[in-house]
């Protein structure tokens, strides 16, 4: 195993909390998001006892309605963490009641931009605003929280989770395809993705490297339509100073059958980042985000 990968996995192992989860930073309380990414990074790379303890915690954070909450201290659900809960079940081939309830909750959740009033406003905007509407509101994505608008990251996370779940839960294909259409419609003029819109008040918005990576992870099944976006992702990867952005772009390019270089140097004390860098590493858990099982 490469040193840079080993250091990240060792850092994750050393920073696991006694409750089995991980905080965003060592010594902080456990949250679902860093716990999920750490579990994906350590999958098949560590003793099973480490992941068993994490599993026990993850299951306690699922709410009766099937959603997951972001952490021990938060009472309500989050869409992105529910997607990660489903994703973990798929990655560990646990297609149980927790899995089924989680998928059902995701399928019952959508951004508010798809209700009739928002669509009406979108149509008016399309007719009255030079250059058309800021966003296509005809396709449903996923919000961070129920009752709010769809954004790129939770939509991508939900697409990945549901595509992984599709073989074990009937009827997800149409909804996932619709969400992919939403992501495709939100591609910025420069070829990448902003965190939400491609325009605001009629003015083009720039893409960001980390959200471009996330969108491309969500759009793995649409590889044939992404030539320009993948080219832009390569440019962003070469130019960004953000380690988080490099990690997401690398994970995305791996998912699209490319082989980006590994992150070097030491992990910097950020658990979520260390986990993503480990997953992005050429020797990392290739299957963590690859819908084709890591054939890339």
């Amino acid at each position, binding site marked *: 195993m490469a040193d840079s990968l080993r250091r990240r996995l060792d850092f994750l192992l050393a920073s696991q909390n006694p409750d089995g989860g991980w*905080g*965003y*930073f060592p010594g*902080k*309380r456990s*949250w679902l*998001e860093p716990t999920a990414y750490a579990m994906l990074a350590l999958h098949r790379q560590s003793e099973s006892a480490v992941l068993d303890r994490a599993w026990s915690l993850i299951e306690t954070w699922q709410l009766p309605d099937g959603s997951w909450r*972001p*952490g021990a*201290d*938060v*009472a309500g659900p*989050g869409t*992105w963490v529910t997607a990660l809960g489903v994703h973990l079940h798929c990655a560990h081939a646990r297609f149980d009641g927790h899995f089924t309830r989680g998928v059902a909750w995701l399928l019952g959740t959508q*951004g*508010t*931009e798809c*209700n009739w*009033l*928002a669509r009406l*406003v*979108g149509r008016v*905007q399309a007719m009255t605003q030079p250059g058309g*509407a*800021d*966003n296509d*509101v005809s396709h449903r994505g996923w*919000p*961070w*929280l129920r*009752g*709010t*608008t*769809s*954004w790129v*990251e*939770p939509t991508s996370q939900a697409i990945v989770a549901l595509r992984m779940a599709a073989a074990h839960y009937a009827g997800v294909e149409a909804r996932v395809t619709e969400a992919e259409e939403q992501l495709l419609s939100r591609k910025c003029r420069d070829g990448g993705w902003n*965190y*939400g*819109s491609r*325009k*605001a*008040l*009629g*003015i083009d918005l720039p893409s*960001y490297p*980390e959200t471009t990576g996330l969108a491309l992870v969500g759009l793995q099944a649409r590889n044939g339509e992404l030539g320009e976006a993948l080219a832009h992702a390569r440019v962003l990867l070469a130019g960004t*100073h*953000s*380690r*988080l*952005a490099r990690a997401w772009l690398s994970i995305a390019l791996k998912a699209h059958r490319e082989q980006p270089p590994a992150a070097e140097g030491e992990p*910097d*004390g*950020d658990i*979520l980042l260390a986990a993503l860098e480990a997953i992005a590493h050429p020797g990392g858990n290739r299957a963590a985000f690859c819908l084709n099982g890591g054939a890339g």
Partner: protein
Amino acid sequence: MNRRKFAGLVGVAAGAGYLSMRASKPEDKGPGAGPPGKSPVAVLKAASYDDDLVAKIRDGAALCGLHVHGKRVLLKPNLVEFDSATAINTDVAVIAAALTAFRSLGAASVRIGEGPGHRRDTLGLAEQARYLHTIPDFEGVFTDLNRDDVRPLDNFAGERFYFPETVLGADLIVSVAKMKTHHWAGATLSMKNLFGLVPGAVYGWPKNKLHYIGIPRAIAELNRTFRNTFALVDGIVGMEGNGPIQGRPKHAGVLVMGQDLAAVDSTCCRIMGIDPARVEYLRLASNIGHVHEASIEQRGESPAALRTNFDLIAQFRNLRLG
């Protein structure tokens, strides 16, 4: 269905902030009289970031009667996005000077905390904005408020809301804001800057829940919730036009300070050529702070003498101060 719900339905992604602003008709009702008494606001000239900003911040704190001794201070910059062509963030020189100034005023501790609204790599942003390498031991004094541990507070906009431990543990929160126009709120100053106290780990990136509460109402609620605050607005180089990200740099050459954030923001608006009485969030906050000129005790420079009109996008031209 009320107007807030209507605006929320469309959300930021569909540009509904604009629609909500247009629907709100802020000129319908002016701000209330505010709390009893007057609020001091210090306006100090600062021609550039090379000025002695530590001395100016100490002077401003003294002019406003701020007591810092023994307090745990949290400096909350406006760190949003980086673009070398414009002036989005609180300049690092102001944050570095504030760190030194508040330490010298006897604070028990001074930390810097920020939870950017839509960029997840907070430390990466801090590096681009030169915070990381300019401020000594930056990582030792910085907390990413988006990913801090949290505790709930009840009755924030009528519901339970979570906030970072670092915020809840501070005796004094200093909103070290940037003087900018804002394409949904009209202006973003010390009060709007408190959006960064809301944790992304609970509410996402962006904190879309605040948009559904309504941007003006959420600003007012944050400022009603956190009363242990002081404002320090970086108006040395602000932003005009399509702020808070895509506007143009605008030199105003001022630092504006005070304990009444509504009074500070109202003063900033007057310097920017914006009528604060027409800014909806200030109207909503007029029960916790002063908006009317007669209720603000201007110390240091006269805002009228320093007025320099910030360009406003078409949707907000009605905010122009007469």
